[in-house]
């Protein structure tokens, strides 16, 4: 479980950096099946491009890093997918997911409101929360594990001309190849938001204690006590 966490982290960083490099070659986004410099974009990222054919308003052209970026992007995607597979199988087998899905009685707005209020008061977690996850954490993890990561894989594959030849619905259900690319881009931002909040929470709850737990698997409650 901890190994899959860190493998996913390494893969995510590689995917993020290389994905950014690939975007630089065409920092324009579209909706539908097709889009190019002769069609109206949905939005444009105001940065110089690594291709002279993309009008950006800048005189400067970025270096083309797409070769290794694409290769590393797909290799890291394989690491993420295979790790996700191991995580999924182990999660089902070990009952880890039971720890992630919010308890039935917490499926109310009230439970969420109460937990947010607790965060705002900066109240310490109670005994059960110390060892498991509260309703907000569970919801965040469920969304990342079961919605955002699968959506990333889906939208990624929907950009593959060979994969969509075999499974055209992967692109069509999203509105087309360019829609898939745009969703891929936005889900990256959602995952980044999660990463920032996740790291911030770890830092707030004692960075060294949590890191030790996530690397060695052991918690040492007594040492942290005053």
């Amino acid at each position, binding site marked *: 479980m901890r190994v899959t966490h860190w493998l996913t982290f390494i893969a995510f960083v590689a995917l993020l950096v290389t994905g950014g490099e690939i975007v630089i070659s065409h920092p324009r986004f579209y909706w539908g*099946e097709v889009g*190019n410099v*002769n*069609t109206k974009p949905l939005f444009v990222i105001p940065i110089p491009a690594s291709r002279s*054919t993309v009008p950006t308003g800048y005189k400067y052209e970025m270096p083309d890093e797409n070769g290794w970026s694409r290769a590393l992007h797909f*290799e890291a995607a*394989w690491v993420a997918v295979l790790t996700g597979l191991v995580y999924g199988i182990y999660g089902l087998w070990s009952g880890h997911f039971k720890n992630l899905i919010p308890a039935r009685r917490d499926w109310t707005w009230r439970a969420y409101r109460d937990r947010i209020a607790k965060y705002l008061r900066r109240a310490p977690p109670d005994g059960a929360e110390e060892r498991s996850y509260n309703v907000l954490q569970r919801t965040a993890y469920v969304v990342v594990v079961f919605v955002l990561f699968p959506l990333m894989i889906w939208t990624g594959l929907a950009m593959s*001309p060979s994969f969509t*030849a075999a499974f055209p619905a992967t692109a069509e259900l999203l509105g087309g190849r360019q829609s898939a690319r745009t969703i891929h881009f936005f889900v990256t931002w959602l995952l980044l938001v999660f990463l920032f909040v996740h790291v911030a929470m770890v830092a707030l709850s004692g960075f060294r204690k949590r890191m030790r737990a996530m690397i060695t698997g052991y918690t040492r*409650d007594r040492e942290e006590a005053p």
Partner: protein
Amino acid sequence: MKSNMKPSMNPISRRRLIRGGVAAVAGVAGLAVADRLAKRYGLIPPDGSGIYGPGETFTYACQRLLTTRTPAREFSRSMISKNPFANAVAPPNDAFKRLAASGFRDWRLVVDGTVAHPMSLSLADLKALGLRSQITEVACEEGWSYIAEWIGTPLSGVLREAGVLPQTRYVVYTSNEEGEWESIDMQDASDPHTLLTMGMNDGDLPVPFGGPLRLRLPRQLGYKSVKYVNRITATDNIKKFGKGLGSVDPEYGYAWYAGI
């Protein structure tokens, strides 16, 4: 507060060491078996080595297993892009300018390599082999795309005409553009959608889009659809070409297999 730490549990116990060892041996054995199977069924791309080799090989092998005999996506006429983007090409050389001046009447496609009858075909010869039209998308690795109708003769027909020999594993295609060459495996070469394209949207294929002859490969990214094709070489040994990586693109870091 009750401690969560179990002092009796040594992080590297004998049992864990044995279990880890067994898993590692099984992993290595599994990889060795996968490697042998991949080699036997031709699932390793010509550029499947180096640090990105495992990723390239996984992608190629999986897509080959998944997409065997699945045709390229075709679109309705109403989806044809009104303003397709031609992308940049190197300025034409003198030989190309001369051929263009005579309306490409003297353009020749040389077919050689592991074929029974090497040939040299004019555009009229190619058209006589039978034309087909398909509306497919050009998707560039940069991210942009457009849809057009492409009219041409399938590569598979030309290979049949030349009597391609059974040991052939790849088809190399070369451009009039200096240093531009690519190759595909036999699965892509025999796909009826792999088109030696001479027309686009009911007209002759314009030069900026690769006219007079472009090899359109709709199941892979745009850079595999080489413009100004003037030579096709069937081969049983792709390592003999260039640096042995299957095409010129891997020499610049781009994957030989561009199905993703």
